[in-house]
């Protein structure tokens, strides 16, 4: 299996531990990922607020690069990138005029896009292509005793839910169980973490994060698993502020790929866990056991 790979800005920036963990884990499973050459910003959420058509053009450049690279499908691990790339595909499909503008812009770069590159999330590929049986085979240190709150965030299931149920997604739950961890029932699975509001308007933004952290603790979880760099940043980076505003709700938030790496026997360092603010003693202990 070989995929084109679109990391997105976050995975090269504050979310670099996501990439650091994802690449070796997928390699271990025999999934090859080739990074798009000279990819650009996906045209994310904030960009859409200024100019949607230009956002589509930015996203289309990446889609066109993927088409030129020639692998059948494109992997986008960041939820926002995944959403924007898929949204652009929908726009291109639905609107002839957007298609026209994008086509002309791509011509300037000697690129073209025919609409045939599916954009998929690594979790989707993991469950539906690799299969949990393959994952289980590679588990060397089952995540015993780890109580995981599976947190999907919003943009991976909405509005273009394709690989999981938009109300009660279960792919991450099943993955955690395959790794030997236990899953707590977490009704806030898809509730918004506050997104970029945590930085711009701390009160409403951080309240969103606080609720998720508080509820994960209330339900007995000792770690939150996530699949989005912004969610990870919000749930991990603002504990000081949240504690000052409300109560201390210290619980680590890690990427699903990091949990996989630990279960596969890779080290915390290799998984980039040292880059997080909240450490996970429970995880370390169980992984070593």
């Amino acid at each position, binding site marked *: 299996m070989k995929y084109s790979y679109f990391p997105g800005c976050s995975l090269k920036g504050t979310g670099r531990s996501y990439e650091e963990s994802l690449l070796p884990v997928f390699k271990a499973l025999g999934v090859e990922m080739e990074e798009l050459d000279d990819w650009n910003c996906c045209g994310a959420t904030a960009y859409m607020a200024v100019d949607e058509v230009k956002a589509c053009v930015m996203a289309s450049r990446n889609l066109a690069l993927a088409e030129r690279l020639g692998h059948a499908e494109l992997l986008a691990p960041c939820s926002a990138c995944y959403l924007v790339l898929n949204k652009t595909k929908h726009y291109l499909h639905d609107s002839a005029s957007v298609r026209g503008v994008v086509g002309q812009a791509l011509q300037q770069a000697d690129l073209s896009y025919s609409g045939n590159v599916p954009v998929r999330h690594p979790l989707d590929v993991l469950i539906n292509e690799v299969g949990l049986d393959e994952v289980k085979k590679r588990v060397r240190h089952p995540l015993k005793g780890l109580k995981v709150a599976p947190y999907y965030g919003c943009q991976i299931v909405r509005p273009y839910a394709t690989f999981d149920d938009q*109300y*009660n997604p279960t792919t991450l739950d099943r993955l955690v169980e395959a790794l030997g961890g236990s899953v707590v029932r977490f*009704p*806030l699975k898809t509730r918004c973490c506050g997104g970029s509001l945590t930085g711009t308007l701390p009160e409403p933004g951080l309240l969103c994060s606080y*609720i998720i952290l508080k*509820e994960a603790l*209330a339900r007995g979880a000792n770690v939150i698993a996530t699949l989005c760099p912004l969610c990870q940043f919000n749930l991990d980076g603002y504990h000081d502020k949240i504690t000052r505003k409300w109560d201390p709700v210290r619980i680590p938030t890690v990427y699903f790929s990091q949990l996989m790496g630990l279960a596969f026997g890779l080290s915390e360092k290799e998984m980039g866990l040292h880059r997080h603010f909240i450490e996970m003693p429970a995880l370390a202990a169980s992984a070593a056991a």
Partner: protein
Amino acid sequence: MDNQRNEPRIGFYVCHCGTNIAGMVDCPAVAQYVSRLPNVVLSRDYKYMCSDPGQELIQQDIREHRLNRIVVASCSPLLHEKTFRGATEKGGLNPFFFHMVNIREHDSWVHTDKQAATEKAKSLAHAAIHRVRFHKPLEVKQVPIHPAVLVVGGGIAGIHAAMTLANAGKKVYLVEREPSIGGHMAKFDKTFPTLDCAACILTPKMSEVGAHPNITLWTYSEAMKMEGYVGNYTVTIRHKPRYIIEDACVGCLECIDACVYKQPKFFDEFNMGLGKRKPVYIPFPQATPQVVLIDPETCLNLKTGKCKKTCVEACADRKAIDFTQKETFSEIKVGAIIVATGFKSFDAQRIPQYGYGTYPNVYTALEIERLVNASGPTGGEVVLRDGKKPKSIGIIHCVGSRDHKTNRWCSRVCCMYSMKLAHLLKEHTEAEVYSFYIDMRTPGKGYEEFYGKLLDEGVQFVRGRVGEVTDWAFTKEEEGKLVIRVEDTLAGYVRRIPVDMVVLATGLEPQADAQEVRRRFNMSCGTEGFFLERHPKLAPVNTFTDGILLAGCCQGPKDIPDTVAQAGAAAAEALVLIDKGHIEQEPNTAFIHEEDCSGCKSCIPLCPYSAILFNEETRKAIINQALCKGCGTCVASCPSGSIEQNLFDDEEIFSEIEGVLAYE
């Protein structure tokens, strides 16, 4: 009349239909155009052709101008063809010298360009003028009718229709697929807005049905197949085995006490699983017929063959239990069929954000009906699944209604039944009751007054569709409760309201097998899946198949008063058919010109009614006029052109084709 066979003298009338037609079609111009066509003696435009003066005009013109063909351009023939044929006949002509042009439904109502619409009207009129010249005088066929009626479905609609017909002295077969009649209404506690007890008004009717000499009641049975045509339907009924000989069972229920299962432990369908039953059971105390049944899925003897059969012992010499019963079939002949198959309650799990099936204290309205019912699983005590009494209750309206992702329609009864439940729950528990609605719909006699009463009682009405029901707490008061998050759109705030119990007012939708039933009885369904009436205003209980009538919620959501009224109307329509003793059949049958028939037999296998026979002596095919339904398939395929169809003959259609393509 002599002039009928002479050179055609056509009278043409174009109807304004007020402004319905005249607003888009230039009626005088159409009349003017037609007046110049060959054989047209007279061409008029008139405000309302279907009115008495309009019909009188036709009759007068026939007499004064010796007309022998009539063409009216107005609405759909499905609406007024009969009217104008009648007028033609009263004028002294054979009614089939009339032809109708549809310039309303097919023209003025669907176009926006007046010139184009007028052109279309002209060319359609032209076709009719061409065609009517070839019309022939025809006789209406009379066919005797079977004076019995089949009612499918034993809810309140079926019960009322059956009783009405039986009281009029007609033979009725009432078929119900559940073990007892009563339908949804039997599960209700009280009825809105009068709050009279559902059982008190329904059960006397149920036992009357059971005892009526004119009614054959078949429960646990289904109408499987229908053949024939209006007046002469043959229906096959399947009787499921209940492992009880109905005639021998006296309803003493001793077998239930004697069952080897000492405690009831199986899912009780009638109480939606809130109660338990044994493998041998009666669905509810007032069930009609008062006959028990045995569930083969749970009965030890039927499952394993190893049981002490204490029930048989208890039944003793009544010998009503028969473990060898198999399903049986009967065939009945009826003149008309009333379909009253009811509705299905929306499956609340399809809206996962309301938590039905996830949180035990989220209930459907139908479950609450059983919970507040004195003969229900808790004896009328409203308690949560853990036995505690709720202190606060939220009722959510429009669950699976007015929602483009599930069902788009308003289910019509939910506002009212939600308020009824709000009243009953308040009465039973003294809890704080919240009612979350989008729009309050109370259009019935005494309904708005009932809303007023509920407001006075202090039910908290919140206008807003609930976003979600969750079990995570943000404040202290929310801990351990279900939390309803909603925008109170009138107060202008988003609110979080903690409650102990959530009630989902689920909407009404078509039965799961509605499509199958539709095919079985040759009906149509609307886009939402309810059975389609012939005309929404003027034929609300008829279907497109003569003699198949509709009653109750299978046609669309409605409350009990409307259901009963509609059932009465369906019974009346059935009586109209039966009391006449015969039915008149459209004479559009096919017949064979023997002299032209080559005897190739290619028509014979095409006829779905086996109406075509082959005369071995003459080596010609013959069509049995009594069996022919007039589809015309054989006509279209006869290689020698020897088959003709009345009203749709080749020359009539060819002339119509020529007419619609004639340019001015």
